[in-house]
């Protein structure tokens, strides 16, 4: 008899309970009377890295083997895995990449939730791996693919991902073992029995139902409700803007009414209108540029100064959100301590230029600009802490005449002028210039870096007379990507040099 063993490969992240799951699978095989062997490679990967556990068992019970002992492999073979289990979506992709999923043999059971890897997390913009690529590959490569969000299932059943996976393995029917034996294993293991059984049951039923995997989508966005005072502006949007731009423009209006006042929102709409008019004139459809300008301009005009931060932090919706996020039960009081560290930059930002600029010049000269940052721990849920922040939020009136607003408006105008000047001749380049607004974000040194990079790109590329017009779009795109590649500005300097300008490194080495 040349019986192939059933092979189970479990891919997990260190500290996630993959070892417990492997032990359960081994115990289930043994309890069912099959010869079974498992092994693993804990070591350093135990500390949050990707790791695997490997189990083999025969479908013939020990009692029926006539005293013969099977020889099990200790390493998984490519193309030879019957049940591929992954506790996270990217790990399912890695399993396929390593050749452990094939159409003749493999049942792929994996959670569709994401635990982002360090390179995805440290990106200066968005380097998330597209999980839909994993789903699409699995649909073609696995004999059977069972995906569902096991993190959510575990949370809903008050359990852990490994228990849900164990249930899904049982429910998939890929192992010659009955449900009662799987459950007995959980009971025999003697810890968190009730929770683990609940997680198991969820995983089991989801695997049996084997629902089709929906493509992954970002969760719902928080749209603002429209303030009544913005009525006339909203009417203008309804009249002049196409349906795919209108919601964004409306959101921008609502945001800026909240941020400052209706007049400020009107300014936004007036500026946006100039771009809309030019794009419409050019006969472009849909109004992709207007849409992007609507998005970026609203975000930019609602730049985050201390007044804005105080406003956001004192809102009732924020208090409710924090409660939910930290899993506080209804009868559990929570206290929020906010970490703020304002310095000369933040304070002068809300002052009129006539006062702010001499202070900044003085501080600059004495190299004191970073010296006066005060570490504040504000208890925003206490009455005094709240009122402090609340009063700060009420200083909106200062903003209209502030240094920061003046500077931002000037930069925005420069950006808008470039866009308006470019649309008639090069729509694609105008879009790329628009996207540069993405660089203006953050606080403190992060903000300064973004602004420096933005200006470098404008000086060296957008405003460059040397650059052939046909290359503008590609050059702006390249420079922008380079600005977001590393915090030290090395890639940007290289890119700008490539684009054909000698550019001195401007920003000093960043901390990260």
């Amino acid at each position, binding site marked *: 008899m040349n019986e192939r063993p059933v092979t189970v490969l479990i891919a997990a992240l260190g500290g996630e309970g993959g070892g417990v799951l492997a032990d359960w699978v081994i115990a289930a095989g043994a309890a069912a009377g099959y010869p079974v062997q498992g092994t693993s490679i804990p070591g*350093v990967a135990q500390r949050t890295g990707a790791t695997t556990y490997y189990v083999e068992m025969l479908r013939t019970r020990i009692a029926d083997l006539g005293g013969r002992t099977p020889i099990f492999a*200790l390493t998984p073979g*490519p193309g030879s895995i019957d049940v591929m289990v992954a506790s996270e979506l990217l790990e399912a992709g890695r399993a396929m990449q390593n050749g452990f999923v094939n159409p003749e043999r493999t049942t792929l059971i994996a959670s569709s939730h994401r635990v982002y890897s360090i390179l995805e997390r440290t990106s200066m913009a968005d380097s998330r791996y597209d999980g839909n690529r994993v789903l699409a590959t699995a649909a073609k490569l696995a004999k059977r693919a069972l995906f569902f969000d096991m993190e959510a299932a575990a949370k809903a059943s008050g359990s852990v991902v490994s228990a849900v996976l164990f249930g899904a393995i049982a429910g998939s029917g890929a192992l010659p073992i009955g449900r009662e034996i799987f459950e007995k294993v959980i009971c025999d293991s003697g810890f968190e029995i009730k929770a683990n059984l609940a997680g198991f049951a969820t995983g089991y039923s989801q695997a049996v139902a084997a629902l089709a995997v929906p493509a992954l989508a970002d969760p719902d*966005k928080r749209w603002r409700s429209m303030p009544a005072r913005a009525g006339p502006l909203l009417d203008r949007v309804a009249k002049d803007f196409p349906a795919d731009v209108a919601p964004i423009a409306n959101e921008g209006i609502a945001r800026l009414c909240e941020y400052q006042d209706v007049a400020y929102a009107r300014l936004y709409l007036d500026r946006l209108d100039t771009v809309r008019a030019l794009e419409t004139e050019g006969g472009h459809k849909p109004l992709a540029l207007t849409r992007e300008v609507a998005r970026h301009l609203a975000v930019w005009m609602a730049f985050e100064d201390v007044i804005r931060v105080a406003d956001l932090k*004192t809102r009732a919706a924020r208090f409710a959100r924090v409660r939910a996020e930290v899993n506080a039960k209804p009868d559990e009081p929570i206290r929020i301590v906010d*970490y703020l560290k304002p310095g000369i930059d933040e304070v002068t930002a809300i002052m009129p230029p006539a006062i702010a600029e001499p202070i900044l010049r003085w501080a600059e000269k004495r190299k004191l600009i970073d010296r006066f940052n005060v570490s504040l721990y504000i208890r925003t849920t206490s*009455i005094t802490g709240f009122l402090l922040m609340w009063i700060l939020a009420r200083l909106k009136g200062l903003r209209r005449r502030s240094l920061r607003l003046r500077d931002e408006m000037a930069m925005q105008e420069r950006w808008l002028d470039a866009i308006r000047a470019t649309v008639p001749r090069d729509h694609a380049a105008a879009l790329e210039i628009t996207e540069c607004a993405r660089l203006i974000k953050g606080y403190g040194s992060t903000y300064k870096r973004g602004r420096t990079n933005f200006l470098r790109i404008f000086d060296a590329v957008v405003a460059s007379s040397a650059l052939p017009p046909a290359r503008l779009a590609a050059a702006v795109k390249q420079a922008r990507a380079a600005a977001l590649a590393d915090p030290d500005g090395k890639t940007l300097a290289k890119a700008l040099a490539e684009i054909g300008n000698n550019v001195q490194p401007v920003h000093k080495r960043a901390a990260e």
Partner: protein
Amino acid sequence: MGERSFKKEIASLRLGEGDTFHGEGILAVTKALLQSGVSYVGGYQGAPVSHLVDVMADANELLEELGVHFEASASEASAAAMLGASINYPLRGAVTWKSTVGTNVASDALANVASAGVKGGAVIILGEDYGEGASIMQERTHAFAMKSQIWLLDPRPNLPMIVDMVEKSFELSEATNTPVMLELRIRACHVHGSFKTKANRPPVFSRKHTIENPDFDYGRIVLPPSTYSQEKHKIEVRLPRAIEFVKRAKLNEVFAGKYDDIGIIVQGGLYNSVIRALGDYGLADGFGATDVPIYVMNVTYPIIDDEIIRFCVGKRAVLVVEESQPEFIEHAVHVALRRADVQTKVLGKGPLPMAGEYTLEVILTGIARFLEGAVPRGVDLAFVGRTHQGLLASKKKAAELLGGPVPPRPPGFCVGCPERPVFSAMKLAEREVGQFHIAADIGCHLFSTLPPFNMGNTVLGYGLSLASSAGVAPSMSRRVISVMGDGGFWHNGLSSGVTNAIYNKDDSVLVIMQNGYSSATGAQHLPSSTTNAKGESLSGTIEAALRGLGVSWIRTLRTYGVAKMKDALKDALTTTERGLKVIIADGECQLARQRRIRPLIRKQIAAGDRVVRTRFGIDDDVCTGDHSCIRLSGCPSLTIKANPDPLKTDPVAHVNNECVGCGLCGEVAHAAVLCPSFFRAEIVQNAWLADRLLDRLRARVIGWFQVDRTTAAQSADATAV
């Protein structure tokens, strides 16, 4: 006392005659040691053999009953030196560590004990940390065995075989007066299986039955002229006896097969993969019956020439499956055959790669190439080729469909790790004083060399960071920082590093990560822990040791205080004071801490006590999605999520529920002046009436001022519905 509790495993160490042991390979070895009547056991922790040390430490009671002496050794050198007990006396003993690094540390003692020779069986259990899952440089132990004439066993990786080989090792050691190494690869250490147990054998001599008279024999002292006769004895007496023993006890195995014009010679540890590969090609079954003859070397040193010759005679070609390099066995096979004038072609490195782990995929490819080259009579080569292509096809297909590699997922510091903030502080110090060379060391802190920190310029060995800075420091424009864990400090750092620096008046900066345990290997206790492995209390401190040696510039700091740590680092880097400057970065290993406090907190909550839970969070509408906070931390609980803002696309930073509230996020945000998005939330569980009344009062007053109170309440209601 380690990361895992071994209660269940200790019960299985007590199993008697004819019982069945179920469990891990390395624990089966532990049981085999007790069945062999050892007087003493020592070892230094390290994957993949940590569990042997841990379970022994926890099994004190059983060991006392038997009279077995156990030491959680201070280093592999200390462990190896224990084998000295077997030189003069018929004491059986075993020691264990991770190889080759542990063997490197132990080699002084090993070479001496090998030269002197042993009366009692001396066995060294080695976890061969090679291939996937390994954490060290990729080398093999084989060379050590050869140079010192220590016999090396590499048994087939199943529990009955491993246990049998441990027992035979003692016999072999005693029959040949030579220490014996038994190497187990990572997966063999962790393989789950079962075997029939024997009763534990109390040692002949022990604390219970002591030796009356010490033995003196100058012939066993490693000093001339004894050393000359010892070398001769190795070659003229011990080696022939070993060969004789291995043959007689049939430690190596031959599995005959019908295609006898070819054959495979394999290290025991790789046998299972070879059988599986042959099975895939239709040349073996799942129970070891093979069509291709196989010679299994459960003893890989010494090589038994007679057996090799007998196996190869009449074969056109043999494949030597020998993992890693250099190919000592392949060379030895060539020599044996050449001397006997046997013309069998020997293949090995060629069909198989010179370097790298022999995974099933590698062996499948190697055997396919060998068969295609050797063209044995009767083998369906077309089927082999097709099968080989078929098995590898899905890998190619996946690469096409995925369209690019999935991002790697390297290991890193755990959630709330106390060592992470030190590197955050170093990043910030670097911004102010300029880049400095960092001499890194072995331990969790070496994760600093991975993203997001990418810090640490060299690694020279356990506890050797400071010593490794001695050569480079004088040539650098800024001072060099050496990082060392408390594990490394006690292992070797105190003597090779600190003492050396003091003696040579080195101008240097040493950062000692004092987390209380040898954390990377599973939270074993250290000389500066509160208790030793057996739970007996200790009083040593790192600071006392340093002061004793005359170090005066010592700063002990809580690791989580990033700003203070940064200042201390700057101070150490720039002070005019010459000599060694030590920063003790103090913070308990978070894994150990959580294991310690979680059950306590659970108990408190269940008892209705007021408990304040702390965790951190980020306001997703304040965060602008630059992620510099993550680049300065990398904590797994500080992650990203889709931006909830309809106008923004870049993901925002997000603290998930794994957060243990260590506070680093907020500290970094402050120290680096990053952003105001961070908040600390204190959740009062089992709140007192006073808490609730105060909370209600605050909510009422605050509510008067909140402009969005009604809309927020409405949306909350809507969610509730």
